[in-house]
């Protein structure tokens, strides 16, 4: 398999076949929290893609050049990663507020919230330790693979979040039984949407 094909498969596998929201349930809080409004969903998707890529890059270096040489990766990775991610988010926030205020305003409150979004920690952990997940890769990702993988995950996140929020806006006007109003029907909609993604399981042997 040529390198280009391999990277393309990695991307598709992360974005569609193993969609982080709808087939693995990671990062559901923003999925239900902000999907009421299409506009905020766009902001959230952008912020997640941005933070996730930077976080994976930072934790990849931290894992390979600090934790592994010191031999403490096994039991220190949880606090180490979450601290790296939290301080990175803080730093990005300060940088954007000072130099790119337009972008900062459009991302708004989503930036700090992303610290506790499990999708970011999960992707960072997965990039250094793929054995955790169902995708069978016997070795740790190189830097390029980690970045492509993260871009795929965030594309999948954006796709699922945007379709779902568009569906939910239509749902507001639909006649729904009283006890199903609001969140219950949103969950059932998400279930049907997830059914569609299940159809892609096993594509390309991913």
């Amino acid at each position, binding site marked *: 398999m040529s390198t280009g094909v391999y990277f393309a498969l990695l991307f598709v596998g992360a974005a569609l076949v193993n969609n982080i929201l709808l087939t693995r349930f*990671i990062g559901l*809080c923003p999925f239900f929290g902000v999907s009421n409004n299409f506009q905020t969903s766009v902001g959230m998707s952008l912020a997640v893609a941005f933070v996730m890529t930077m976080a994976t890059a930072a934790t990849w270096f931290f894992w390979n050049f600090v934790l592994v040489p010191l031999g403490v990766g096994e039991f220190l990775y949880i606090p180490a990663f979450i601290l790296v991610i*939290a301080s990175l988010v803080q730093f990005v926030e300060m940088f954007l507020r000072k130099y790119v205020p337009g972008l900062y305003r459009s991302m708004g409150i989503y930036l700090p919230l992303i610290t506790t979004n499990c999708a970011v*920690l999960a992707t960072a952990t997965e990039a250094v330790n793929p054995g955790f997940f169902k995708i069978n890769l016997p070795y740790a990702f190189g830097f390029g693979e980690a970045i492509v993988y993260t871009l795929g995950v965030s594309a999948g996140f954006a796709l699922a979040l945007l379709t779902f929020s568009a569906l939910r806006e239509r749902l507001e006007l639909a006649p729904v039984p009283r006890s199903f109003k609001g969140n219950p029907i949103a969950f059932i909609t998400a279930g049907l949407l997830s059914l569609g993604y299940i159809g892609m399981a096993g594509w390309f042997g991913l």
Partner: protein
Amino acid sequence: MSEWVATLRNGLMLENPLMRLMIGLCATLAVSTQVESSLFLGLAVIFVLFASNLIISSFRNVIPDQVRIPIFIVVIASFVTVVDLTMKAYVPAVYAVLGIWIPLIVVNCVILGRAEAFAYRNRVGLSIADALGMGLGFLIVIVGLAFFRELLGTGSLVWMGEPVVSLPESYPAPAILVLFPGGFLVFGFLMAGFNALDLRREKRKEAGR
């Protein structure tokens, strides 16, 4: 004492983290395919919640406001590491099923949310009540969800490798319930059931007035 009980009940019923506050959903939907692993996740969450609420509320007067979130996260992450290594050592079979969801307890909104909203503002006794209430509320919902999904989706309940309850052979178990869409569907229906009970209670209250 009554305040203590009220706080405990608050987590169990009125502000149930999953049904009412809608936080901590990711782990719930992903893990609730088996009663056994759900029970272990619930216990892990109760332990971490209890320990972090205890520590954070005892130190609430010395934690500076500006850096409280990183401090909370470090406290939580340490206890999660304890759970992570303990489960890996003593219940490897369950650990293999739970996998990434144990480290992800760090970012489980229930725990950070309670640290921020409750333990940081209340005395130690009440924070413990809150941790137990919220933790039990989480445990009950996740085990309930897993009960329906496992029983109806596979036709039997398995405990430590042995089937405990089995439905008759003629029952065609729809495997979709234990797959991903089933998590959303069953949770949606459970929630609608909760809402229906609420609506009925309100109606009765109005009729009685």
